[in-house]
């Protein structure tokens, strides 16, 4: 089966004065139909930029984005708008992602209007169905977003994203601003939708547990590049990159019978700025296994075992 999405050597830079902020720097990956790629990393690592660049909401500086066999970097105007029916996005802040002047019914109907699908009556019915799917009572169709709780707002955002029957959805930290119980509902919903509609996600989050739950493969991002990419079980069971290991170690685990953890093996220091990248390996300033070569040479992102990519001199 060919990939649904193939991204090659993607770069996205932002000018910062005379310098460049390398938000996404030479990233390659692929996603098969129905497959979910989880993307983890700290804030400032370029996760969100990558998500938006893949959708061409941001214009990439370099690289290829092949969606369903079409190079979407070449598309213009109406063609680009057409292909957007098949790729959607869900945002971190659900309230900010909804137009405060539209009722939720209008918000969900909007994609259908934009692509001129169906009659008014049909669209109304579609909206009702979508409300059912995401679990919002039909009676709320004429309410405004600000009258809802965050979880429901996010459901509206999901319904809107589903309206056009997309194949691929970028989920940009969809649960990080929500409460635990609500976040769990949304994660569950996304999980169900994925199974029901054979959706592919690019699931962005800083929460390793959520990513693990939803993804088939997981990529770890640090300062604009992938440091490790592997199938879920492989990555969580056998992390190779020191950064991945540190991330996993710093997450508190549910204590089982008395096994409380009161100290967390923490990574030293903080993520450097993407404007002034360290020389050599980007992680060398925080790596406890740092060697001379790490300071000199940037490691290559290579496949160490089938499907398991890592960029580290030590591996």
């Amino acid at each position: 089966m060919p990939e649904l999405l193939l991204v090659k050597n993607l770069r996205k830079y932002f000018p910062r004065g005379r310098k460049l902020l390398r938000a996404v720097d030479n990233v390659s990956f692929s996603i098969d139909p129905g497959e979910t790629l989880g993307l983890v990393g700290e804030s400032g690592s370029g996760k969100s930029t990558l998500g938006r660049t893949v959708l061409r909401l941001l214009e990439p500086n370099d690289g290829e984005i092949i969606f369903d066999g079409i190079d979407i970097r070449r598309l213009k105007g109406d063609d680009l708008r057409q292909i957007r029916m098949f790729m959607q996005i869900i945002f971190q802040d659900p309230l900010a992602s909804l137009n405060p002047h539209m009722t939720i019914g209008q918000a969900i109907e909007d994609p259908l209007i934009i692509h001129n699908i169906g009659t008014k009556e049909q669209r109304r019915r579609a909206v009702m169905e979508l409300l059912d799917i995401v679990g919002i009572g039909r009676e709320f169709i004429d309410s405004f977003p600000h009258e809802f709780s965050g979880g429901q707002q996010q459901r509206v955002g999901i319904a809107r994203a589903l309206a056009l029957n997309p194949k691929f959805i970028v989920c940009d930290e969809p649960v990080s601003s929500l409460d635990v119980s609500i976040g769990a509902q949304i994660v569950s919903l996304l999980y169900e939708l994925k199974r029901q509609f054979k959706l592919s996600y690019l699931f962005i989050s800083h929460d390793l547990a959520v990513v693990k739950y939803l993804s088939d493969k997981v990529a770890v991002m640090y300062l604009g590049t992938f440091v490790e990419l592997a199938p879920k079980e492989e990555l969580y069971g056998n992390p190779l990159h020191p950064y991945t290991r540190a991330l996993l170690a710093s997450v508190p685990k549910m204590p089982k019978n008395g096994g409380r953890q009161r100290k967390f093996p923490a990574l030293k220091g903080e993520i450097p700025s993407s404007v002034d990248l360290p020389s050599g390996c980007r992680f060398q300033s925080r790596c406890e296994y740092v060697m001379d070569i790490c300071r000199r040479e940037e490691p290559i992102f290579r496949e160490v075992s089938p499907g398991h990519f890592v960029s580290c001199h030590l591996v």
Partner: protein
Amino acid sequence: MEVALKQQKRRASYWSAAWGRFKKNKMAVVGLIYIIIIIIVSIFTPWIAPYPYDEPHYAHTFEKPSAKFWWGTDDLGRCMFSRNLYAMRNALLIGFGSQIVVLIIGVIIGSIAGFRGGRVDTILMRITDIMYAFPTFLFNVILVTVMGRGLFTILVAVGVTGWAGMARLVRGMVMYLKHADFVEAARALGSKEGYIIRKYILPNMLGPIIVSLAFGIPNGIWIESGLALIGMGVRPPMPSWGNMIGAGIGYIMAFPHMVIFPVLTFALTLLAFTYVGDGLRDALNPRSEV
């Protein structure tokens, strides 16, 4: 304190919520009622005013308020009450009219700068900066000189000198909205730019623009009165508050009614607009609910 928002079936739009907040500000509501009254009065002034604004009664010059002339008469024996009504009407015309000019210029320049960005933005904002630095009063005087006097030219002049703030506001809003999440979402859905502007950007710019206009109106009235004081206001015998106050102040020792009434109506109107502006700002600014 975050409290779970109740799920209401009642349809509470952005605007009705804003109206709800506005209603809580008593001064603003009083101001709004006053403004609505004076707008109605202004529309029907020719029927309401007991006398034409330019009809002299030479036997009744400088008369104190009486049953015949409610607010007294002026140096030509003209009814001060009627003249005040007409002055109010002119002030409102200039206030609203100038803001229409501000709106047109400010929105066009601001949105072009905001949408285009880059060099166009830099150039337009540089022009806006120059407008800011131009001494407004002198510029007004020069413009009125160039275009001639009269209600229309004055309101155009006031507008032409006052659009810089609006342009900056609109530019800022466009810059922000352009990359707001919900606009990104619309773009991700594949909507055309025109559709985005119409359905997403414009409705969201409306609030701050309305607030800015609400404060612009009294400002316009104020500038006209300043111009009238140096004789650059509307053509006599058409009254304006500026020239009524300017003329009346000379008579204050003997005939205080000639200055008290115009000053009172003038001040009340400006106050009303300012209070309404305050109310609108608080109502349309979501942060205000603390």
